[in-house]
């Protein structure tokens, strides 16, 4: 598990450095001073790795999890890091919530009139 994590972090770091060689990236326009931006780089890679392993521990296949995290922005990955258990997750199972709607609807109908 730990070795998978480490491999992930390394590959994510490599990916993010590689993509910016030579050209200044779109996300670096409002760049912070060099030392700080390197630290942010590492933090971003860490939060991505964290979300990948959290998804994996919650039943998502590791390759799928990696692809899923790759399509997130740094900010999005940070917002999920350490919080995947608590952020809202839309579910909606069969039928019973319609009963809840009816109750709420009746209450609101009273107020609306």
């Amino acid at each position, binding site marked *: 598990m730990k070795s998978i994590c480490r491999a992930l972090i390394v590959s994510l770091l490599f990916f993010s450095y590689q993509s910016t060689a*030579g*050209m*200044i*990236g*779109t*996300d*670096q*326009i409002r*760049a*912070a*001073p*060099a030392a700080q*931006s390197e630290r942010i780089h590492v933090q971003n890679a860490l939060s991505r790795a964290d979300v990948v392993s959290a*998804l994996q*521990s*919650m*039943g*998502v*296949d590791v390759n*799928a999890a990696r*692809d*899923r995290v*790759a*399509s*997130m*922005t*740094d900010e*999005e990955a940070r*917002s*999920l890091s350490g919080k*995947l*258990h608590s*952020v*809202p*997750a*839309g*579910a*909606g*199972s*069969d*039928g019973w*919530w*319609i009963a*809840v*709607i009816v*109750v*709420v*609807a009746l209450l*609101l*109908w*009273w*107020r*609306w*009139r």
Partner: protein
Amino acid sequence: MTTVERMLENARVFAGVFFLCAALGGCATVFPQTAELRAEWPAGLPQEIELSEVPFFPQTEYQCGPAALATALAHLSLPVTADDLVKDLYIPARKGTVPVEMLATPRRHGIISYTLAPRMADVLREIAAGNPVIVLQNYSTWPIFKFWHYAVAIGFDAVSGTVQLRSGEEERLSIPLGILEYTWKDGGNWAMVVVPPDRIPATAERARYFDSIAALERAGQPAAAAIAYEQFLSRWPDDLGASVGLANAYYAIGHLERTEGALRRALDRHPDSVVLLNNLAHTLSEAGRSKEALELIERAAGDGPHAKTVGETRALILQRLAQ
């Protein structure tokens, strides 16, 4: 009438009066946005509209996320079904889908996802422009227990004060605007639309929409991002970020001529931008024009935040010239 019946009758009247007071006093605080819409319908917004051609994918089990997103994507004629999206969206241990992944998944299809400003009027404007809006609702009335659900808003009617949804197993669920607002507020009034890269959402705000395109570029879709940046620049031509983004997207798909063109157009507007100078110098050098590149990179010299990259570009150019 017996005493018991009279007491019951009184209780009923009492309850009615109590409710009415709560309603009159509380309406604007419980449903501020609905109250505002009732007071004044937004200018330029039709009284009613329904995008009845929006497809419907009834959700199975806990998969309202895949169903809602498939509804919006299939409306853009993408050949996806709710089942296809389960592997991209569903988290088994949560029995659900998180909003971030609702935004991230369309990017893999070269589609832009845009988070709306938290205003109900914006939701209605997007619908009126032909964009179904995915909303995150909490259907629980208890404060401790949350019941999150995604639905797709496809229509509204100002006269009856209702909004129409594709929701769960309901192909057409019509609910009062007030209920939408009430169930919508716990999730921070979260709503999104998906648009093809050549179309700007009706309520697009500059910074917010730029972030949406940059996210598409970041997700490995430079060709789609380039189209979107072009559209963005035709509306906001002086945007430095989008100019850099456009050039980077062209560079990523290996189109050096277009990269150069985009950077030169941007340099006319921002002649001192270190980012533009560095990226143009790098591009020209890649195209075997290191002499021109050297002149440009000299103009970028300095000790700003990009000094390190500029130094590397300059070293590379000098190395190529020496060969």
